[in-house]
């Protein structure tokens, strides 16, 4: 039976407000340290110039001019893409059982966009000019235009809206209870009343929002792929596969992070009630699908590089398979292929252990990072078309520091959100009613 009653009459289950566990505090503490390190590192880069990084000019400089930062940017864009896709799919395909991870995905998406944006800024030689000149002069013809405007402004904003609208109801619930954050909850709730028409309206709005977002995402992530895909000057990049490959690997890593976060929340905040194995199984299958496609792309790319490839492509492939980059390459491949195996097994055995999925997710994300790195760097150090000889690139401590800082910032943002609003949607009272 489902009789509507004003929500404030309902008692809030204690576990529904999160962010109180010891683990949470510990993680936040570490994040703060990481952030400080990041800030210190970036300060060094600003004052000393980018000479403090490991990057150098391509050619006579014998280096790579894009390095860890860009690899991280691409990775984050992928995560963000995947996050919002999952959220949107939950809407579009009415995947009720996945609703508990919906918001996790949304948050992930927003955070990832922010980090990606910052990654671009720290990679600029003239960061402040960048902020102004991009808005002022950005050229559609430059793939950067797409990456920058569409990705950052576009679905950064879109996912923010999405997150906001989705959070109103829970905010309204919390707004009822006095507390330090009541003002915030009231603001977010912005007069949400749990009337049927309000709900119905919200559902419709977020449905169309989702409909709007998904194509945008494909375009956006593809342009990011084009940033590399369209470069004739860079052997190993000029590949039609880049865009689709980008999108799929993005999906893989994103789903992975969702799984990790979900597992973390489930364990740390004891939410096995909603984050059921079924949820994980579903995500696992999704990852299996994407991973399968990606590994296929990877194989095709390798084959084309080894056989059809030009001399330059051949050199890069050599560097990847047997040369300088072989360790990173084969590790990344293993981190993607082994999980695929595990997932296939799980699918056949119909046994989706959360532990295994979490492990797999961590692996694929490391693998994804590695692959991003290998797309960016080798073509610069080993792909020069004129006989410059081999170059080399090793990220400097400063770069690791800055990236660490960015990750830490992301963690802090998520943690803060958990404090402010339920990271898992509050159950609607008809469900409560069922529980009762």
């Amino acid at each position, binding site marked *: 039976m489902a009789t509507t009653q004003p929500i404030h009459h309902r008692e809030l289950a204690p576990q529904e407000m999160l962010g109180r566990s010891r683990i949470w505090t510990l993680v936040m503490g570490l994040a703060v340290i990481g952030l400080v390190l990041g800030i210190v590192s970036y300060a060094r880069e600003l004052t*000393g*110039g*980018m*000479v403090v990084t490991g*990057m*150098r*000019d*391509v*050619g*006579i*400089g014998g280096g790579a*001019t*894009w390095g860890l930062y860009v690899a991280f940017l691409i990775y984050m864009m992928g995560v963000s893409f995947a996050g919002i896709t999952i959220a949107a799919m939950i809407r579009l395909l009415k995947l009720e059982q996945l609703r508990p991870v919906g918001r996790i995905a949304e948050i992930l998406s927003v955070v990832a966009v922010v980090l990606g944006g910052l990654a*671009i800024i720290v*990679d*600029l*030689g*003239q*960061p402040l*000019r*960048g902020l102004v*000149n*991009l808005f*002022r*002069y*950005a*050229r559609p*013809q*430059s*793939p*950067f*235009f797409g990456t*920058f405007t569409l990705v950052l402004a576009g679905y950064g904003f879109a996912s923010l809206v999405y997150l906001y609208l989705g959070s109103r109801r829970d905010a309204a619930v919390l707004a009822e209870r006095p507390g330090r954050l009541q003002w915030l909850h009231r603001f977010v709730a912005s007069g949400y009343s749990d009337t049927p028409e309000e709900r119905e309206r919200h559902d419709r709005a977020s449905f169309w929002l989702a409909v709007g977002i998904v194509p945008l995402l494909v375009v956006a992530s593809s342009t990011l792929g084009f*940033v590399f895909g369209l*470069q*004739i*000057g*860079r052997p190993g990049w000029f590949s039609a596969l880049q865009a689709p490959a980008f999108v799929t690997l993005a999906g893989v890593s994103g789903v992975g992070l969702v799984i990790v976060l979900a597992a973390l929340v489930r364990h740390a905040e004891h939410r096995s009630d909603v984050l059921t194995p079924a949820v994980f199984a579903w995500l696992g299958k999704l990852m299996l699908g994407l991973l399968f496609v990606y590994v296929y792309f990877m194989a095709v790319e390798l084959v084309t590089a080894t056989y059809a490839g030009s*001399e*330059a492509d051949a*050199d890069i492939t050599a560097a990847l398979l047997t040369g300088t980059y072989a360790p990173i390459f084969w590790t990344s491949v293993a981190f993607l292929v082994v999980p695929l195996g595990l997932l296939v097994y799980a699918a056949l055995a119909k046994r989706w252990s959360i532990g295994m999925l979490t492990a797999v997710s961590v692996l694929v994300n490391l693998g994804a990072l590695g692959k991003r790195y290998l797309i960016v760097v080798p073509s*610069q150090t080993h792909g*020069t*078309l*004129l*006989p*410059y*000889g081999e170059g080399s690139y090793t990220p400097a401590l400063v770069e690791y520091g800055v990236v660490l800082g960015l990750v830490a910032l992301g963690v802090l943002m998520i943690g803060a959100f958990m404090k402010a609003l339920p990271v898992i949607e509050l159950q609607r009272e008809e469900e409560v009613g069922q529980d009762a």
Partner: protein
Amino acid sequence: MTRYAMVIDLDRCQGCRACVEACKVENNTPQGSLWMHVFRLEEGTYPSTTMSFLPRPCQHCDNAPCVKVCPVGARYKREDGLVLTDFDRCIGCRYCELACPYGVNVFNWSDPAEHQYLDWDDPDLPDEVRGSVPPWHNPDHDVVHGDEQRRTSGGGHAKGVVEKCTFCVQRLERGELPACATTCPVNAIIFGDTDDPGDSVNAEIARGDAFDLLPEAGTKPRVHYVGGKHPTRSAREIERVEVEV
């Protein structure tokens, strides 16, 4: 209407790198920033070894990848064929550097003012250079150029921006040839206007043995080569320069 082009005669080039030095002095480029590079290449094994030289300025492509990818239009193509960089607009994303198949772009990794061959121990240095850094500071680089009125000549203007060969835009405006073409002791660098039928550069381009660098990249360079042959990837670079950024 003028359309500038350069022809480099590999039958004449002796690989002396005078062009490199002329460029550096003329354009005040900072330490580690070589806009012109001369490959000294070696192929084969003793005793059947062959050697060749290959000067490599910016190719000033008509279909320039760097121009296409520049997110803010700091790198742009002029109607007269020059591909220039607006040092005051560049945001330092180094996308042009990746897009260029020839590797001609140079980024100011550190403060150029502190990389002008002057960081030696000397208390009197400031007085000696009398505020002009480098001591051979060329005032042409302080002013704007072309109808577009942008500051595009010279190097080392700011930390964190990309620079490259400009065909010596400041000299062209004075009616002079680029520094490299002027100084070449064996006149291996021919520079001129392809829209002027009388210009000797056209005859050179028309030579049967003329070729472009990396034609497969479809960049349509305005720098052409005659004599010699396109370097193969089996060529080894000897006597590499050691840039210190």
